[in-house]
C-alpha cells in the first residue's frame, strides 16, 4: 500500500475564498478520504433573530451572505408575510423578481470569473469581473447599495424603479448580455477549460437526488428542479423554464451557470416589460400571529429554505435558515474520493460554496 498523506485544504486557500477546511487523505495523488471541518464563520444569526423585533431581522438576514444578500432579505420578508398570510402588491413582486435576478446575474458572473481564475485563466477572470461591475452599478443605482441592498420590507419593497432608471437598466443589461455571451462562448469551447473540467466530479441523477443537492449543482445532473417553478414572486407570469444539463460533471455545472446568467438577464428584461404600475408597499397588520410558515427560494447557489414560527408578539419564536451550500457540502464527500489531488479545487469550486451562508 502506498503511503497515505493527510493535507489540509483551506480554511485559507488561494482558490477558495471561503473558510472551510477539508482534511484530504491522499495516496499517490489520488484522494481517498475527505473530512470537512466547519465552524470558522458561525455567528449565531438564528438565535439573534429570536431576540430582535421582526422588522430588524431583515437587515440581519441580509448579512447571512454577501452575494445573495438581496435574496436573503426577500426570502425573510416572504416567509414572515406567510405567517399572516398577506399579499404584497403586484409591482412589488416584480421589483423583487428583478432584484433577485440581478443578484443572480452578478453572482454567476462572479463564479464564472472564479472558475477561470481557478484554472489559471487570469485574463478571462478580469473580463468577467469587469462586466459584473456594470450589474453592481445597476444595483447601486436602483437599490442604493452595491452589496447589501436592503430593499425588501415585510409588506413590499422600499424603493421603486422609475422610468429613467428603467431605461438605463434595459440598455445596460442588453450590453451585459452581449458581452457575457461572447465570453461564455470562449469559456465553453476552450480546450484547456474542457480538459480541466469535463468528466471531473461526476454525480449521476440518482446520486444527486439522494445527496439532497440543489440549485445549479442538481440541475447539472439532469434533474429538472428549480424553486422558481413554484411560481412565487412574479416567476409564474414570466414563462420560466429551468436550465438543465445531463452530464453531471464540472463542465456541466459551469454550463448551467453560464446559461442561467443569460436567462436571468432575459427574465429581467421580460419583467421590465411586463411590470404593472401601482403600489409597492402595504402595511402589515399588527404583529406576526402565532403560526408557522415555510418558504423556499432559488438563490444563485441553489435553494434556500426559510422556516418561521411566530407567537403573536413582535419577536419571532423561531427562525430557521437552510442555505444551499449546507445541503451541497455532503456531495463533496462522494465526489472527491477517487479524484486527482489537482482537481480538488475545481470540484470544490464547482458547488459554488458559500460557507458563511452555511454556518450563519
Amino acid at each position, binding site marked *: 500500500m502506498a503511503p497515505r498523506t493527510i493535507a489540509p485544504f483551506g480554511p485559507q486557500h488561494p482558490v477558495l475564498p471561503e473558510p472551510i477546511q477539508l482534511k484530504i487523505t491522499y495516496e499517490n495523488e489520488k484522494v481517498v478520504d475527505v473530512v470537512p471541518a*466547519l465552524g470558522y464563520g458561525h455567528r449565531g444569526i438564528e438565535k439573534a433573530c*429570536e*431576540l430582535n423585533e421582526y422588522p430588524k431581522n431583515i437587515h440581519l438576514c441580509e448579512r447571512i451572505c454577501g452575494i445573495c444578500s438581496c435574496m436573503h432579505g426577500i426570502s425573510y420578508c416572504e416567509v414572515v408575510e406567510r405567517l399572516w398570510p398577506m399579499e404584497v402588491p403586484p409591482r412589488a413582486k416584480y421589483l423583487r423578481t428583478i432584484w433577485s435576478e440581478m443578484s443572480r446575474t452578478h453572482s454567476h458572473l462572479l463564479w464564472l470569473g472564479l472558475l477561470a481564475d481557478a484554472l489559471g485563466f487570469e485574463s478571462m477572470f478580469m473580463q468577467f469581473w469587469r462586466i459584473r461591475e456594470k450589474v453592481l452599478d445597476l444595483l447601486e443605482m436602483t437599490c442604493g447599495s452595491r452589496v447589501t441592498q436592503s430593499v425588501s420590507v415585510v409588506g413590499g419593497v422600499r424603493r421603486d424603479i422609475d422610468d429613467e432608471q428603467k431605461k438605463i437598466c434595459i440598455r445596460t443589461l442588453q450590453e451585459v448580455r452581449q458581452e457575457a455571451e461572447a465570453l461564455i462562448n470562449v469559456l465553453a469551447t476552450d480546450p484547456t477549460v474542457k480538459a480541466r473540467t469535463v468528466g471531473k466530479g461526476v454525480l449521476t441523477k440518482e446520486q444527486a*437526488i439522494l445527496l439532497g443537492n440543489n440549485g445549479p449543482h442538481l440541475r447539472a445532473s439532469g434533474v429538472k428542479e*428549480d424553486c422558481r417553478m413554484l411560481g412565487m414572486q412574479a416567476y409564474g407570469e414570466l414563462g420560466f423554464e429551468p436550465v438543465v444539463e445531463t452530464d453531471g460533471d464540472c463542465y456541466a455545472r459551469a454550463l448551467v451557470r453560464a446559461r442561467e446568467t443569460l436567462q436571468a438577464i432575459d427574465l429581467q428584461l421580460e419583467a421590465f416589460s411586463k411590470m404593472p404600475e401601482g403600489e409597492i408597499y402595504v402595511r402589515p397588520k399588527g404583529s406576526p400571529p402565532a403560526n408557522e410558515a*415555510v418558504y423556499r427560494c432559488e438563490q444563485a447557489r441553489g435553494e434556500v*429554505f426559510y*422556516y418561521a414560527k411566530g407567537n403573536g408578539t413582535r419577536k419571532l419564536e423561531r427562525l430557521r435558515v437552510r442555505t444551499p451550500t*449546507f445541503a451541497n457540502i455532503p456531495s463533496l464527500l*462522494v465526489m472527491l474520493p477517487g479524484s486527482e489531488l489537482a482537481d480538488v479545487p475545481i470540484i470544490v469550486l464547482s458547488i459554488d460554496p458559500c460557507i458563511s451562508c452555511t454556518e450563519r
Partner: protein
Amino acid sequence: MIENLKEISKDTLLQEVQKFADAKARFVTTVCSDLGDKLEVTYYFNYSPGVDMVALRMVVGKDEEVPSISGIYLTAVLSENEMFEQFGLKVKDMAIDFGGLMLLGKDSPVKPMVKDDAAAGKGGE
C-alpha cells in the same frame, strides 16, 4: 400553517424516511424548535420536481435519543449535528459525528438555541 404535515413518533421515523428514499424524494432539511419542556423535530422532503414539500414531525423529550437518518440520507448529517449542538438533541449513530464541535468551539455557550434564561441575551446589539 405547514402543508402536508404528518405526525410520527421516533420509533417509526426510520421506516417513514425509508419510504421517501424508495420514492426518490430529496431530503431538504430538519427544523428543531424548543417547546419548553420538549423538542419538536420536523423533517422536510421534496418529491422532485418543483412541488410542495412533505414534512414529518415528531415531538421528543429533551433527554430522549432519536435514531439518525444519515444512514439513508447522508446529507442529513450536517443538520443532525447542528441539532445536537444547538439544542442538545441526542442523535444515535450519525455517519459523521463532529462531537458538538461542528459550528461551535470548545469555549462556546452550551446548547445556545435552547430557550432558558441562561442562554437568552440582549437583543439589538
